[in-house]
């Protein structure tokens, strides 16, 4: 059993691997949507939209949260519990802030006269960025779970796997947003 356990240790942890496969799956969803965008863009009656400035702020927030979760993971590994708790709190707050900024950005686009009628860049943006936002919200919920686990007095858990999986996911939604931002800017 010992030998076997060591064998297993050399491999990637199954939960981490599962997260990588899930990331591939989510990527396919956005690949489907963005390729639909490209196809639709070349067809008549395509309408464009103005990228709101606020999205630059949300991008900055997203990038900052990636840094904080990176630091949080390091703190966890070095068993600095106080620092870890602070950093995941900050990450969760930045996640919420990102979603709020996205919502404000949507409102700005909506105010510029782009509603759900039609199927131009704006409508695609609502759906694609909206779905991305939902993935961030899912991440925030997971962060809150981690947060409460970190404060639990009944159990002390030093298993880094959940935190590592979390940070992988968080970097992924960050990168996904960068991709979407570049995509929307290049193909308006």
């Amino acid at each position: 059993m010992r030998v076997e356990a060591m064998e297993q240790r050399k491999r990637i942890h199954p939960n981490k691997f599962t997260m990588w496969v899930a990331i591939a799956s989510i990527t396919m969803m956005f690949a489907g949507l963005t390729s639909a965008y490209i196809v639709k863009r070349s067809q008549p009656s395509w309408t464009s939209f103005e990228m709101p400035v606020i999205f630059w702020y949300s991008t900055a927030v997203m990038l900052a949260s990636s840094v904080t979760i990176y630091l949080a993971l390091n703190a966890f590994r070095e068993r600095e519990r106080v620092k870890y708790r602070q950093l995941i709190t900050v990450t969760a707050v930045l996640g919420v802030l990102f979603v709020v900024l996205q919502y404000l950005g949507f409102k700005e686009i909506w105010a510029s006269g782009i509603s759900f009628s039609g199927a131009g860049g704006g409508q695609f943006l609502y759906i694609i960025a909206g779905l991305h936002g939902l993935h961030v919200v899912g991440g925030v919920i997971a962060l809150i779970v981690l947060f409460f686990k970190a404060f639990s007095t009944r159990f002390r858990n030093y298993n880094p796997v959940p935190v590592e999986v979390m940070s992988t996911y968080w970097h992924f939604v960050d990168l996904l947003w960068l991709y979407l931002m570049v995509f929307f800017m290049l193909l308006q």
Partner: protein
Amino acid sequence: MSQEVNLHEQVGAMTTHEVHHDEHHGHHHKETFITKYVFSQDHKMIAKQFLITGMIWAIIGGLFSVLFRLQLGFPNETFPILEDILGKWAAGGKIQPEFYYALTTMHGTVLVFFVLTAGLSGTFANFLIPLQLGARDMASPFMNMLSYWFFFIASIVMVSSLFVQTGPASGGWTVYPPLSALGDASEGSKIGMDLWLIAMALFVVSSLLGGLNYISTILNMRTKGMSMTRMPLTIWALFFTAVLGVLSFPVLLSGFILLLFDRHAGTSFYLSDIFLASTQKALPNEGGSAILYQHLFWFLGHPEVYIIILPTMGLVSDVMSANARKPIFGYMAMVGSMFAIAVLAFLVWAHHMFVTGLNPFLGAFFVLLTLLIAVPSAIKVFNWITTLWRGNLRFTPGMLFSIGFVSLFISGGLTGIFLGNSTLDIHLHDTYFVIAHFHIVMGVSAFFGMFAGIYHWFPKMYGRYLNNTLAYIHFWITLVGAYLIFWPMHYQGLAGVPRRYLDFSGWASFNQFDGLNRFISIVTIMVFAVQLLFVFNFIYSIFKGRRVTTQNPWGATTLEWTTPINPGHGNWEGEIPEVHRWAYDYGKDGRDFVPQTEAISPNESPESKH
């Protein structure tokens, strides 16, 4: 972290990292009725849940086909009993047009997704992956449980859509817009369509949770010595299936999300300038592209047919090799051809769209890629036949269904070569030729593979055997019946009989097929009755079947037969066995079979080249 630890993390209540030194405490957990049979995290129980739910769905979906075959075979008769049961849907004892379309749509949806995707992969991936790889459970038993319950909720929503006043979705299982996007266009496009979309979204979540687990388990949880090339072909097949599902279902989901927005938010992704006769109004939408939906749908839809057929290819390979008492012929060629099929599955979706206005130049590439699939398919068929060749065949029910599978796969595969040609498709599209092709190649043959699997692994699932006499009746009537139903449809299709019509009586040129239609309908009813016989056999044998008395009743080499006759949660009582050889050492050095767990002895002939 060892599998042991991982399992305890999930099975045990709240454990922390420190507790893990006690390697065996998990086996003493108390199981209540709820945790054992309902919210079970044991992969074997989840597999049975998938199987039984799938069987209920198969009866419902099969019954639908009997109902619409009644209409097709006897368009001038009335069946007053139908009105008693179905009410307004069969007013005057005749199936109403709206109901006819609802029946065909739900027949397709139920059998493609709920039976042959969830029922098939859900059952055998859950059951066999940990058992054949030597793992105590899935990578995440909790996600595995969620996967079943998402499927269950999806089932509830889909069933509920059958009972709404305007009826379930009825625009075909592909739910093409604009019909599916416009509630005013037909009864079935109203609330039934929304429920269909919700059910399918839940279904996609279930498939993804399951698929993630299967991939992760196969790549990470193999026991010592179980290298990838020692895995049974079933596991390879389930692996490719899971990869296909994980990469293609999300695209379907994105297509559904756009469809939901078109239905309810007023966007025009798929809807263009349409004048609706039913409301006498022009739609405000403009510029939408219905073809866009078809691209998104078939990007899943085509891999979906391989999601259905690949697992059965794996099951059949293993059942066949074990019952021919011969190594599978061309193991690596089998794996390679499944890989080729998995790759090509993503590159051929537009062959479903040859006549929808697709650029003919683009179509040419899709013809080429489609016909390329014939190569790996032919390799597989060749290998199955050469596995049978001069084998010491045992005609168990599982073996018969495996041979039936190969027969059907050849018959149905050959017509695929016709349909893969975009020029022939001009004549053949939307005719009974298409119906005949896909029912034989992925419908009936997938069912045969599934039956082979059920008959072969039932002793492992329930510790009892299915009744053989009933099984042989089941096999012969189903095989002969399937050919009698679908073979004549090729001729109808070549003669130009279109699908989706509920009555051909106004069409003088097709009157010659009246007798044939009646014949097909009668055979359909008989075949359906025999499936009920199988269900009876299944349920009866769970409780009253002959008991399995030996650990390895089929004399098979794979790991699942090294577990106790009724394995508990965790599968092996002691340590997980170690694997020393591939899964196909049958008839080696004069021995009937050598289990995978047996170490290679020094005077053994060299390991088979595979």
